[in-house]
């Protein structure tokens, strides 16, 4: 970990405000670029989920169970923007997070209101990240002496202050923080549904990262071994009182396992070439669409190796019973519904799905306030259209069959407005054309959808783009199989 004073005076970069000790040179800047930050984020999410307000928000609005890799990537990207050398980037990200949090409100199953922008809630999120960082260092055998710990804490407070104009509700001193932390663990945290979902389902059912999406058998085999280990490590690292409240016993050997895991990450960070242990490298490895550059050749080699391993695994697997065309059709259609439409993974299409889609697009395309508002408004209007057309029983949600059957015959003006916003944000030079390359990048970035090898010189007009977008959202651009299924449910 570097120990130099924060400077932030790179060319073209706004000098760092001494009152906001983030950016290059800060401990947080260094930590959030290390691969082991992923361990911190994973442990912290369990502590966050045990908070009743955050747990309710996660269960009703978040897509982390259905799309955990995307969630991890967004968290990492957001953390890195929050410690970016350029203060304008930090401010922009904080403003974006504020807008995002303000949109996540509702009531939980017991009728208690939750609001992701609540200061106390956000303080707890930052507190879990701080405490998880300290725990990671402690379990890795790194000593954080008083001044270093104080500095780390002040950086996390600065992190929160970026989002909270009045500085947020984290205690001013480290001594007070530990008291606050203990009280939260003892009195505030609960055995929420979100915690149970994370521990029971997330690790056991985590879908393959994009790199291994075409090798589900390889992923399933690895997950069957690594899943229980990941649960044991995470559970063993939780505070004892919370573990007791969640009814999670400490498994024999878990202490040894946890030390081995954290020590390995520490030594890997110290001994391996820096490019290998950077978080960007790992994210690029599991998600080729993230577009990170470091170690590109090594990554390309790894990806080729993984592809070959997947091919060999499938070839060595005995041929299963041949699926009928109908079965293949159902699988393909289900994939479109789960990957594009059903963002929360609950099997239905409802407002949190569309909100998550808008949130995801806004994050990935880094939209400014005006474009983001236009996008959310268009999605909200579209949801109202869908409800009027489809939700006849008024339960606030529609099934995949209902959705596709309706979109095949209905051209929603609100959906056209969604397309127009996407066209506008992609057409950077405002010449009313987007080229084939930009079109494919948009779909890959916003929807994880590969439109195939097209012609980069192709020029798409607004009308043509809208036509293709409507076709995609009706599932017709995804596969013929999807079309057949939904045309004849």
């Amino acid at each position, binding site marked *: 970990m570097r120990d130099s004073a924060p400077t932030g005076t790179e060319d073209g970069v706004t000098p760092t405000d001494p009152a906001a000790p983030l950016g290059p040179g800060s401990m947080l800047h260094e930590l959030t670029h290390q691969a082991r930050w992923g361990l911190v984020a994973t442990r912290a999410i369990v502590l966050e989920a045990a908070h009743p307000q955050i747990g309710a928000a996660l269960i009703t609005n978040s897509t982390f169970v259905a799309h955990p890799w995307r969630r991890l990537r967004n968290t990492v990207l957001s953390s890195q923007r929050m410690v970016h050398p350029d203060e304008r980037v930090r401010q922009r990200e904080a403003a974006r997070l504020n807008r995002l949090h303000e949109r996540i409100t509702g009531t939980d199953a017991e009728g208690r209101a939750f609001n992701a922008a609540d200061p106390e809630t956000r303080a707890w999120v930052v507190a879990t990240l701080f405490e998880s960082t300290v725990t990671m260092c402690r379990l890795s055998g790194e000593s954080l002496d008083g001044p270093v710990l104080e500095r780390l804490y002040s950086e996390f407070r600065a992190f929160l202050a970026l989002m909270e104009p009045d500085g947020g509700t984290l205690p001013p001193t480290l001594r007070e923080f530990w008291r606050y932390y203990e009280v939260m663990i003892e009195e505030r945290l609960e055995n929420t549904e979100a915690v149970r979902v994370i521990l029971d389902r997330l690790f056991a059912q985590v879908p393959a990262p994009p790199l291994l999406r075409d090798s589900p058998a390889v992923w399933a085999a690895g997950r069957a071994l690594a899943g229980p280990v990941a649960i044991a490590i995470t559970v063993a690292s939780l505070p004892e009182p919370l573990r007791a409240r969640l009814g999670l016993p400490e498994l024999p050997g878990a202490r040894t396992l946890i030390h081995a895991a954290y020590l390995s990450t520490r030594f890997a960070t110290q001994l391996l070439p820096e490019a290998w242990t950077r978080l960007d490298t790992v994210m690029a490895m599991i998600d080729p669409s993230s577009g990170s550059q470091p170690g590109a050749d090594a990554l390309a080699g790894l990806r*080729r190796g993984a592809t*070959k391993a997947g091919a*060999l695994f*499938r*070839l060595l697997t005995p*041929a299963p019973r041949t*699926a009928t065309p109908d079965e293949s059709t159902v699988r393909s259609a289900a994939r479109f519904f789960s990957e594009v439409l059903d963002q929360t993974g609950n099997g239905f299409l409802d407002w949190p799905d569309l909100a998550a889609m808008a949130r995801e697009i806004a994050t990935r395309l880094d939209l400014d306030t005006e474009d983001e508002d236009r996008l959310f408004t268009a999605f909200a209007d579209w949801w109202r259209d869908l409800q009027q057309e489809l939700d006849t029983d008024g339960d606030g949600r529609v099934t995949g069959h209902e959705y596709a059957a309706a979109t095949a015959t209905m051209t929603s003006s609100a959906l056209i407005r969604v397309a127009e916003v996407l066209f506008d944000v992609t057409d950077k030079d405002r010449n009313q054309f987007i080229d084939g390359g930009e079109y494919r990048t948009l779909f890959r970035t916003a929807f994880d959808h590969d439109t195939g090898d097209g012609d980069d010189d192709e020029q798409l007009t607004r009308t043509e783009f809208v036509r293709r977008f409507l076709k995609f959202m009706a599932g017709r651009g995804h596969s013929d199989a999807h079309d057949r299924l939904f045309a004849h449910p």
Partner: protein
Amino acid sequence: MRGLPDHVACVMDGNGRWAAQRSLPRTAGHHAAEAAVIDVIEAAHTAGVGWLSLYAFSTENWRRPAAEVDVLLRLVRRTIKKHALALHARGIRCRFLGVTDPRIPPPLARDIADLMTLTRDNRRMTLTVAFDHGGRRDIVEAARSLIRDGVPPEQVTEESFARHLPHPDLPEVDLVIRTSGEQRISNFMLWQVAYAEWIFPDVLWPDFRAEHFWQCLDVYRRRNRRFGEVSVPTARGKGT
């Protein structure tokens, strides 16, 4: 070994007759062909042949009885799964020529793609399996590709045309072995066999073994290939 052909192709003929001679269904001949295929791949690999092409299934073969086609497709899949690892371990790059018909079952198409992915970096020998292949169709496709690219007529040469064929790096065939004594081209790699030497052993394909393959190589080495000239004193590929 001096005078070896660089590219050998086999038209695997005689499965049906082999079965008929034994009062077995035609499909039994196809099953028996698997051993010959593996033997020939091994023999070519040992001899140091760089390119081996096998004619497994033509575009015309789809006209055969559905049950026979079905058995053939399943047999190909089984053979791929059974021998993929051994082929890869021997450094053999496997490729397929054709394989465009929608009637090819998706699991088989997946296995074919997987085999190509697995072995794509191997260079010891390249095995090209012509499956759902038609030589004329390849030429028509190349012509279409030229037109799509807007190549002016005066720029179309044999070399530029060949670059639009599937697997443009596939060298011209030096030797074609067609088993069972039949002497026809049967729409096989029409462009690539232009100057090939042909050998027609009487052996039916299920009985064809490494020793027959060696005999064919020996016959080839003793031939005097002239490529239309008066004399070229070697039996190796063009220009050698």
